[in-house]
């Protein structure tokens, strides 16, 4: 299963992937690059990734989600490389029979991805460049 993309992510691809005739509830999380972070004006972000381990770690998260909730389908994709403000960095999409498990599983998916998957972002702002989580701004940047 492919989870890491060098080119633009696709909301349509994610929604098509989770479509299911018993999927009465669909939950979709989209993470985009925002203009401001911690008072800094963002020019762009650069994402680096250890692809084989990232794919493997996301696969584990998918398996954990399937074990915890009775879902129909799940789809995760994460972008790497240079992303401009407004571009999509990550999509987590889940379908289930009902809304509760879809929303809970979607939340768990994005939270675990941010905690565990070996992906790093460098913020390039008007104030300079810095790796998020490896500097003094760690607590605010990881919000």
């Amino acid at each position, binding site marked *: 299963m492919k989870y890491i993309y060098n080119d633009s992510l696709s909301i349509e691809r994610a929604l098509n992937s989770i479509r299911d005739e018993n999927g009465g509830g669909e939950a979709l999380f989209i993470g985009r690059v925002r203009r401001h972070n911690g008072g800094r004006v963002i020019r762009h972000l650069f994402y*680096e990734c*250890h692809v084989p*381990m990232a794919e493997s770690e996301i696969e584990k998260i998918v398996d954990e989600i399937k074990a915890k909730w009775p879902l129909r389908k799940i789809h995760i994709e*994460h972008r790497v490389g240079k992303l401009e403000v407004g571009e999509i960095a990550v999509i987590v999409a889940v379908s289930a029979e009902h809304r509760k498990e879809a929303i809970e599983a979607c939340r768990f998916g994005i939270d675990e991805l941010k905690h565990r*998957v*070996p992906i*790093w972002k460098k913020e390039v702002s008007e104030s300079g460049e810095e*790796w998020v989580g*490896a500097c003094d701004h760690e607590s605010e940047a990881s919000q």
Partner: protein
Amino acid sequence: MAVRVELFAAFAEFAGTREVQIAFHPGMTCGDLWMEMQKKYPRLSPIPPLFAIGKEYVRKDFALKDGDQLLLFPPVSGG
């Protein structure tokens, strides 16, 4: 007798290299190797490391073997 260490993101940038060989000694753990890395590259010191071998995270007290290929990650920040 060495462990090959692959560095990523902030670690690669601050060390100025993506790969480094660290001399292996029997009983060496990831934590011991991290101490060596901090001596060699003081700029890495404030950043809490994550260790992995292959596609699996390993703990700080994981016992390394001669010839291991260790992945050294700074805190992840995807999403």
